């Protein structure tokens, strides 16, 4: 019992700290959902809401069978009705246009309804094929140009941000309120290793978060990665590090979990809106663009999209990587200086 023990029985502390982080995460079902489930649910919902629809045919009422034959086509549903019924159908929105036999052929429609103007154009083209324009229509639905292609990189960026902020910021403050931080610094534990365990955990998590979202995007929506996969992983890592730093920063002095939750939301909410997760930052006025560009989530999203959609290489995303590196360095430096261990 009092025999001094050799190093043989000593577990490695960095490994034990990291293991503890992973165990504590995977034993918390709520945390698992918010990290992995929530982005998936969100991408399903948004993917369905903004899916590329087949063009809907227009509905046109006609009063003669002869017109009906000439109009019927892929994009036009023809309803053969008498004059009164046709008027009613137009008024109640069941059809967009009524075509009355001529001569001259008469179009009845409400010009303020875009569908009606479309129906008129389609009817016109069908009735006067010789006047067809000398252009060719080309539908744009190939991968890379759809909303879901824009959305998936944004969701990856958002997931990296929120799991970093909550997974470090909230967890550290909870340890402080439970006096666990104090208990740990009462041991010879290396503070650097303690912080590294969080960084390592976040990096390991990327190898779960990324494949889940990427695989999901590929399987369900055929969202691919145009550029290099290693580069995509590197960009995600840079993002994870900068949000690890910010998570540590918001946690460095907060004394209770309400405070840190408030701080986390304060940091994240503006970026949810302004960093191009759900819609392009280009929608904001030019005057604020320089500010948006230095937000870490903007940089991360832009870099992710450049690699995933445009297939860009390292050089093209240099400025974004620079922003992420600067945020990482600054946040860790300040956090370590002001961190409250007790």
């Amino acid at each position: 019992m009092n025999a001094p023990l050799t190093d043989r029985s000593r577990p490695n502390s960095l490994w034990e700290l990291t293991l503890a982080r992973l165990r504590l995460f995977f034993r918390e079902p709520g945390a698992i959902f918010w990290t992995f489930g929530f982005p998936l649910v969100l991408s399903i919902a948004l993917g369905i809401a903004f899916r590329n629809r087949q063009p809907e045919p227009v509905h046109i009422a006609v009063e003669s069978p002869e017109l009906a034959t000439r109009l019927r086509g892929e994009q036009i549903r023809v309803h053969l009705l008498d004059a009164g019924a046709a008027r009613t159908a137009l008024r109640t929105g069941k059809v967009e246009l009524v075509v009355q036999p001529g001569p001259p052929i008469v179009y009845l429609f409400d010009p303020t309804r875009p569908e009606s103007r479309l129906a008129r154009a389609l009817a016109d083209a069908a009735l006067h094929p010789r006047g067809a324009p000398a252009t060719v229509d080309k539908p744009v639905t190939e991968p890379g140009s759809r909303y879901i292609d824009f959305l998936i990189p944004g969701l990856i960026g958002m997931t990296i941000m929120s799991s970093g902020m909550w997974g470090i910021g909230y967890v550290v403050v909870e340890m402080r309120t439970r006096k666990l931080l104090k208990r740990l610094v009462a041991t010879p534990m290396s503070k650097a290793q303690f912080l590294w365990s969080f960084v390592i955990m976040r990096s390991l998590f990327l190898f779960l978060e990324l494949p889940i979202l990427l695989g999901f995007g590929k399987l369900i929506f055929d969202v691919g990665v145009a550029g290099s996969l290693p580069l995509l992983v590197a960009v995600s890592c840079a993002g994870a590090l900068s949000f690890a730093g910010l998570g540590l920063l918001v946690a460095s002095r907060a004394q209770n979990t309400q405070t840190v939750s408030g701080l986390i939301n304060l940091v994240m909410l503006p970026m949810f809106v302004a960093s191009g997760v759900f819609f392009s930052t280009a929608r904001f006025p030019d005057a604020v663009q320089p500010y948006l560009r230095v937000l870490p989530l903007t940089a991360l999203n832009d870099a992710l999209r450049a690699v995933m959609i445009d297939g860009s290489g390292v050089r093209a995303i240099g400025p974004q990587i620079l922003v992420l590196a600067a945020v990482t360095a600054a946040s860790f430096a300040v956090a370590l200086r002001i961190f409250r261990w007790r």
Partner: protein
Amino acid sequence: MTEAAVRCEKLVKRYGEVTAVDGLDLEVRRGECFGLLGPNGAGKTTTVEILEGLNDPTAGTVEVLGMRWTRDDKALRQRLGISLQETHLPEKLTVEENLRLFRSFYQRGREIDEVLDLVELRDKRRSWTEKLSGGQKQRLAVACALVSDPDLLFLDEPTTGLDPQSRRQLWDVVLGFKALGRTVLLTTHYMEEAERLCDRVAIIDKGKVIALGTPAELIASLGGEEVVELAAEVLPEDLSTLPGVRGARRSADGIALTVEHLHIALPAILQRVRGVTRLSTHHASLEDVFVHLTGRHLRE
């Protein structure tokens, strides 16, 4: 080595207007179990956390195992075992995982199995910490302090809130540790605990040491080993002059007499006092010492 395990001089800690520790001198010898006994708010935790290097004193000097905080932190931390008054170990780690984590911070220490046996938690090794009872959690906290095989063990109110059986189990752990010749500094507001475990006790009140000695010495300072408490319709003033009576102290509803020889004092008391409505006797305890010194009870 004759140097003290812990020595502090003129220790002061102020929080704004509040003076938590008010010029405190202590010397804990190697191999003894030293107790800080005092009511809530006396400054025990503040003192101990300063000695543990977890809090900075406003003034005063501290020496632990011949070393100083801020200068020798690394070496010191390797040799201390600490159980804070309040720590919530990770709830969703098992007993064994928690111990292994703490073990990993120390260069030398004990095997996990050995420590589990020591605190009788072997059959709980795979239980999540959140599933443990209060007493088991507390024993785990002490186990985390013992896993380094420390030279000096700090225990801040190790048994507060525990049932008598859990308390006794923890006492056995502390006595076992002491039997190895190691040093313990513990705080408590249970006088039975101080009497049972401690070689020497410092009674603390309002940030000061108001009495110091072995439990026997402190009790002997009352002048008698028995205490007679009584209430009566009329209580004469001169009871302390009766044969065998060494001291008297009025309380809210009667009087407490310190008595040397119960068989001599009791008949004399009963003869002198008319209309006794309540009478009880007990062995003098550290509680009586505290009441004698401050006029208040330890647990109020």
